[in-house]
């Protein structure tokens, strides 16, 4: 399984605490957007398979056919994190080699534990649109920082 992560290019003038705040906002945006059933390009996730809808996990998870949100236990999205940051860059994703990383890969590639992707079942959530990123950068760059701390 490959390591699931992506690099976010950011202005080099952002200080470390601003980079952490920005990463937090990017991650929370990804969670919010995924929770609303949208992939990294703002498109609706493909629907669940008939087999999954009929499964015990689907019932136990209290899931609905009309809400594809990549959450059963919720652990995968909870595991998404800022892996590292440096001037001009954030690296966001999952700890390599973890079950959550593998789940993410299954969703991103549409493989779900199979050797090949299942056609039409890719659910790539790991990324952010440029316009949204610019909005978050602007907020961090112009706000007074986390908890009102002055720059």
């Amino acid at each position: 399984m490959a390591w699931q992560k992506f690099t976010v290019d950011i202005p080099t003038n952002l200080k470390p605490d601003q980079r952490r705040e920005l990463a937090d906002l990017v991650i929370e945006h990804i969670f919010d957007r995924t929770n609303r059933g949208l992939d990294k390009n703002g498109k609706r996730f493909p629907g669940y398979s008939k087999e999954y809808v009929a499964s015990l996990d689907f019932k136990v998870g209290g899931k609905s056919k009309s809400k594809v949100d990549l959450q059963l236990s919720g652990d995968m999205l909870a595991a998404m994190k800022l892996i590292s940051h440096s001037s001009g860059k954030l690296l966001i994703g999952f700890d390599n080699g973890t079950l959550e990383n593998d789940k993410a890969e299954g969703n991103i590639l549409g493989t779900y534990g199979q050797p090949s992707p299942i056609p039409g079942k890719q659910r790539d959530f790991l990324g952010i649109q440029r316009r949204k990123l610019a909005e978050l950068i602007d907020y961090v760059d112009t706000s007074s920082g986390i908890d009102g701390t002055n720059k």
Partner: protein
Amino acid sequence: MAQTNSKKSIRDIFKRLEDAIDKSIDAKQLRPIAKFTIDLIVKRTRLGYGVDRQFGTKKKLKPLSDQYIEYRRSLSGKSKPKSKTPKIFGARSVKLSEFTNATRSNLTLTGQMLDSMTILSERGKSISIGPQGKRNEGGPTNDQIADYQASQGRVFNRVSLLEFKQIVREYRRTFGDLLKKSKLIQ
């Protein structure tokens, strides 16, 4: 008085939550967070996983014995047990919960124990959660069943580290900084 396995104070969860958000939690906010925590624990257990220690890693619950699976199959009416049912398994007249099947190890037979999970007591920032009450068929109470399961290595009334992160997110979005930033992160 020592905590039993069934009852669990989630004071340590609230303390760690306060550390994570770097501010004190209002007592009024504890109840919804406690209920969110209960829902997480119940769902995870029904999916077939337990957590041995607070903030640990979830692990698949110990598999069911062949004899117990046979008993569970007989409850769904799909087969008759080949051997005499041990008394410890329970009555022959109970109905298998919709949230399980004959072979899944998820601490669910009729569903009463996990359905009974609730806030047991509240005092300041100390809240205890756990199963409670009697069962429809009589016999051991729900917390006694939970204690028995724990003695067999099936501990469920704890929160994993990733579940804790879900609790932090829920707090932040409901009461904390993300509530104010909700439009920003959409």
